[in-house]
């Protein structure tokens, strides 16, 4: 017990004293709540009558409940699709914003805005956007009416760019397919060409009925996933990408310059540098982003709760919302046992998914 004597003991005493507030919150908000929920998940309990031990009945009931199975399917597909998309988009955005371009600060701030807004407010605005006569359908209608213009623009763009690149290479210049200077010229030419075509009435807007997609108030499915859930995925990606982008931006600052210089000496193209230098170097950050993404998406509640006022329950129910619904939404007294069992299941599932990801997906180490 010699370590408990003298200055060492003093140190330990002070360390624990300073850790006390943290232990207290951890103990009350986490450990106590967790073990209470764990106990309740084995009980029949409604907040009012004393809890009665019921063994695994609640878990058995969960798996017999089609709504729970649907919630499980929704949560898993939501987690996989959103995490994949948001990680890729965040990486691309971060790489784009890591260049020396004009107005960089503006773009960084603009892209980050969705993340600093309250998700409830963004959710409400999103509901307005997805009205039948809302912004989303309006923009789609515009595109549909003018699809010939869009096609002609894209066609011209590709054509001009192709011709420019061929011309450049013939003159022996080391031009890339997406050379920025040529791209600007092609953009201008394509815009001008489309404008001329439409002025000469070669291109005319096709009178089509307005796009009438019902985004939220529907039970229809696309690829087996309800359309409202797709809409929530889009919303979730839009609001989380900026935060993830920030992580990648921070990671990009840490990639050693020498690696790029060495790669350039070896004649690596931009694509090769991205694939063989940047992405491997970013792996620890990517691990963080994917893990946070999986945890966040599996536990997604707020956006489902906001849209629950508009969309049918079975089209948006996720595991976290299922927990809430059993507690307060289903009518009758709270089904604390079922809610706790679902919550414990969600916690275990999150842990398992993250472990699997670590095992077979992106690891923490760079090389």
């Amino acid at each position, binding site marked *: 017990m010699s370590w408990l004597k003298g200055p060492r003991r003093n140190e330990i005493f002070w360390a624990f004293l300073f850790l006390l507030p943290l232990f207290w919150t951890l103990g009350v908000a986490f450990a106590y709540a967790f073990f209470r929920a764990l106990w309740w998940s084995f009980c029949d309990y409604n907040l009012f009558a004393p809890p009665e031990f019921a063994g695994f009945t609640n878990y058995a009931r969960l798996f017999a409940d089609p709504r729970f199975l649907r919630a499980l399917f929704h949560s898993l597909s939501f987690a996989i699709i959103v995490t994949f998309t948001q990680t890729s988009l965040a990486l691309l955005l971060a790489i784009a914003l890591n260049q020396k371009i004009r107005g960089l600060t503006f773009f960084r701030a603009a892209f980050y805005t969705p993340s600093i807004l309250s998700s409830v407010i963004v959710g409400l605005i999103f509901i307005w956007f997805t*009205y039948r006569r809302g912004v989303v359908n309006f923009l789609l209608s515009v595109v549909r009416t003018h699809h010939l213009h869009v096609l002609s623009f894209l066609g011209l763009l590709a054509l001009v760019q192709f011709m420019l690149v061929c011309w450049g290479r013939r003159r022996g210049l080391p031009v890339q397919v997406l050379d920025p200077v040529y791209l600007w010229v092609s953009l201008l030419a394509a815009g001008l060409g489309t404008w001329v075509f439409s002025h000469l009435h070669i291109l005319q807007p096709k009178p089509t009925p307005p796009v009438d997609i019902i985004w939220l108030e529907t039970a229809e499915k696309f690829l087996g996933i309800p359309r409202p859930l797709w809409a929530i995925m889009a919303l979730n990606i839009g609001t989380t990408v900026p935060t993830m982008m920030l992580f990648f931006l921070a990671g990009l600052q840490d990639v050693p310059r020498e690696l790029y210089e060495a790669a350039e000496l070896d004649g690596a193209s931009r694509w090769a540098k991205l694939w063989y230098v940047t992405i491997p170097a970013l792996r620890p950050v990517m691990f963080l982003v994917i893990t946070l993404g999986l945890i966040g998406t599996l536990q997604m509640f707020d956006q489902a709760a906001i849209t629950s006022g508009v969309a*049918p329950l079975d089209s948006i129910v996720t595991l976290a919302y299922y927990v809430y619904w059993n507690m*307060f939404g*289903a*009518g009758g*007294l709270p089904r604390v046992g079922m809610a706790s069992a679902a919550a414990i299941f969600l916690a275990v599932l999150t842990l398992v998914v993250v472990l699997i990801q670590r095992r077979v997906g992106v690891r923490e180490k760079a090389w």
Partner: protein
Amino acid sequence: MKRWFLALVCGVLAFSALGQEKIVIRIAGHSVDKPVKEALIRDVVAPKLPPNVEVVFEPVVDDYKQWLLTMLAAGTPPDIFYVDVYWAEEVVRTGRVRALDEFLAKSEILKKEDLIPVLVQAFTVDGKLYAISKDFNSLVVFFNKDMFDAKGVPYPTAEDDWETLWDKVRRVHNPPEWVGICLNPDFARFLPFAFAAGMPFLNPDGTAPFARPEAIRAAEWFSAPIREGFGATAADLGVGWPGAAFVEEKAAVVIEGGWLIPPIREGAPLMNFGTTFLPTIDGRRGNYLFTVGYGMPVEEILPSKRPDLVWKVIELLTSPEAQSYILSIGHAIPSRAALLSHPVLASPADPFQEAMRTVFVATGLPGTVPFSFAPVGSVYHIVVAEALTKMFTGELSPAAAMQEAAEKLNKELKR
């Protein structure tokens, strides 16, 4: 040091002695009620209470039922809380809400007979009354007279049945200026019509009634404006709810309750509008009664420990004086039957007071049922809402949608 300590102890003792004298009665209600309830407490309730009794209104911003259930479960409820007819039975079943019959039997100010019978029925569970209705609402037809005049269509009247009302709405439909009716796929609008058509709450064998011919007939009629294009949903008109479409003069007709009166007063005070009862089907009418009452917790968890005083406050809040006060500021429609002779209701001076009278009378008509889904719970209206959404968007025909709703509810009922 000792002297300081002594002074501190004396101070604490003196303070707690003062505290014992003062009794605080806490009322927790919806946060939107705060200004009105505080004025009511100040002007009507407080003067009639002993000076050491203070009544405090505590606004609840959360989902009220969720808040109340957790407070009751934790044993920390307020002295008086709101009880919504929508979840009254659930909360009573917790066993933490006190039956008020013994107080009512002794009361001088408040008798069961004073209250509108359907309001007593709304808060009665197993023969006992658990809350005193503070005010109420029911559905009526709001119509914009100028739009009907412009199209030369006669106004909707109390004599209208389903077909004649839709006929008028079809004729007043005038896009793109305004639509005939703004109607949402809202179970709280649809179900009263289904009940009027003869659909029971559940079949005699306890199964879902939605596949019955009466229910399908109601669904076909109710969704006709959207399916046939002489109406639109609020979202289609770019507003948050049908009432807003009416205030913004985007719809000639809406089916709403007295809650639409304040928004019209604020948003379109000069609007030339009228109100009438819901249309009939085979001479029958349906309607929902929306009401909120005052309840108190059982004595063990009553914070003030003074049920007599708490009851006194409930009495004062629902006294004739308090109710005419609420009526005259046009806030809500109070719960005493005798108020029909109040000048605001007896001889209404403007469309707003007329609307209040229509709502008041409509509530008392046969066919009005409390807005409650006990003993089934919210799954009942969740499946109806999904069916309505599907027929409004054209995903399913009314018959198919109702069939699906019946199957879904039957599945839930079996669990």
